[in-house]
């Protein structure tokens, strides 16, 4: 009984930080929600013209922007999570009041809740449109895609939080993580495909893991393709381009990275001095 009470008291600062963080980020949340609504409306209009044959086909097009949205959301909501306490010196006020592990957990969960709401809104708008276009047709794959998107979001969030734990400025963190997510991993993946071909699957790459969100809609499909250097000679020398991980490995890697990056971020945050 006493242990339960102590546990509850121990969790209270995390809960208080979550609610405070949600209030603190509400302006950013509303701005991003507006962006999501605009993008989804644009997609609704575009797919209205193209009108694919199936609901899955519709989602395949509608989710074209999802990775981009997830990347932006993670960068904007998580880049300040640790480094702003140092950069803006708010740490002088907050650090003596709460254990650093509880602080990072509270902030992480608070922001994660917000971005989950945002991404859920996107799926809801697209989902309603799909129902409208294709009647009562349902697909477990769409729901799986949504769950993987949430998992991928938490991986991205941990990744950005990790960078925030050692970089100095908020803007620097946004730029570096965004460039890495959008271009960095892609370039490295190309090089790896060039050097190791199909022998090495780029499971280190968050961009590669994120492809599962869309590709789960059409699974099992090709996991990689061979791109010839000379298009006129398809049988000539080629490089391998990985498209998607397998479902099991992809989910495992995302879970692993979520935990790993978050633990590393927490440890670095604990060591970092203001």
């Amino acid at each position, binding site marked *: 009984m006493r242990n339960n009470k102590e546990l509850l*008291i121990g969790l*209270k*600062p995390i809960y*208080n*930080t979550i609610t*405070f963080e949600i*209030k*603190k980020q509400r302006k950013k949340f509303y701005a991003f929600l507006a962006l999501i609504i605009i993008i989804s409306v644009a997609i609704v209009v575009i797919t209205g013209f193209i009108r694919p044959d199936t609901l899955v086909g519709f989602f395949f097009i509608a989710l074209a922007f999802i990775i981009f949205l997830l990347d932006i959301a993670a960068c904007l909501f998580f880049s300040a999570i640790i480094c702003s306490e140092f950069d*803006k*010196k*708010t*740490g*002088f*006020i907050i*650090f*003596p*009041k*709460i*254990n650093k592990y509880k602080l990072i957990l509270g902030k992480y969960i608070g922001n994660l809740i917000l971005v989950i709401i945002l991404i859920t809104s996107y799926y809801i708008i697209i989902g309603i449109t799909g129902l409208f276009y294709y009647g009562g047709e349902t697909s477990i794959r769409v729901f799986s895609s949504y769950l993987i998107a949430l998992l991928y979001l938490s991986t991205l969030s941990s990744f950005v939080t990790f960078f925030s734990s050692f970089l100095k400025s908020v803007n620097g963190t946004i730029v570096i993580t965004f460039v890495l997510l959008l271009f960095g991993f892609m370039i490295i993946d190309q090089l790896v495909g060039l050097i190791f071909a199909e022998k090495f699957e780029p499971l280190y790459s968050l961009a590669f893991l994120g492809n599962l969100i869309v590709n789960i809609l059409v699974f099992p499909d090709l996991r990689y393709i061979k791109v010839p250097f000379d298009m006129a000679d398809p049988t000539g020398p080629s490089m391998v381009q990985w498209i998607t991980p397998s479902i099991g490995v992809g989910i495992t890697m995302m879970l692993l990275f979520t935990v790993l990056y978050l633990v590393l971020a927490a440890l670095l945050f604990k060591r970092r*001095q*203001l």
Partner: protein
Amino acid sequence: MTETIIKLENLTKKFGDFTAVNNINLEVHRGEIIGLVGPNGAGKTTTIKMIAKILRPNSGRILLRTNQGKLEDLQNVSSTVTQMGFLIDIPEFYKMTAYQLLKYFAKLQNYPKDKINERIDWFLAFFKLTEWKHENVKNFSKGMKQKVGLIQAIIHDPEIIILDEPQTGLDPLARVDIRNGIKALQSAGKTIFVASHMLYEISEICDKIAMINRGSIIGFDTVENLASALKTSEIIFEVLESITPHELEPLLSRLIERLNPYLDKELDPSVSKIPIKYYPEEKELKIFYDGNHKSKGEILKILIKEFESDFTVISYTQEKTSQLERVYTQMVKDDDVNRKSKINGEVSKNEK
């Protein structure tokens, strides 16, 4: 003497080759107000940051008396959150309203939920911020932010309050508000540790002063004891009648001759070239004496009895601030000279 509540033991903090805090030992007793005085970069804020667990010491430790009554190493104590309140540096806040911030801080430090609003309202009224309660702190002036900074340090009613330059950059009115706030805490029996450049503020509120220079404590005592250790002090006598310029010179000569045994023989010329000064506008005589309590009494007796025909003493004061300034300047100078001679000694040893 009341029990020790915080104890710094051989506390050292280095940043690379630079030693910011060097082997500091200090004891703070329950209910005391301790001032930490020192030039820029002396190690005041670094010391406070280590007490706040924002910085880790390289060696030494900080002991805190816990709620169980034991002195325990701060690194192993989790109750610091509720036992201490900190205002470090110029406070920077999240972009939220004063009310939202203070509510969050009070909750974090386990202040009873049902009393939080009442407490916030009381403090905001005390510091004249009530009408700003629901305004974003980013729109606050520096003084207002500093007041919110002080409130956040004490919102959870901590036993120990640690303040770093609480009055820096404030206008006189805001400074008075902050000083009144600290005095109110003092009368509530709180233990307070204040680092400041403002010698007047420090001398007004502190029971003891710790002087810090280049990371080391060079003096720790009451202002009076620090002053007497330097064997120099000053006292101001207010006189009833103005002393005319043609009377002044012979009078000063007589005064210096008569009071000679009690005057400061090694008066620092940067403080004053003569041991007795007259300020016509204030009708005040300032006498630099040897700091001895007996001398002070003798001087008073002589002025009243033997100079009755020249002037009438109506009051005397001993300004803590100017005393502290002199003690501070002297101690820092002495410390710097000692260091230089030590370094020179080491250099010549090495050359040999």
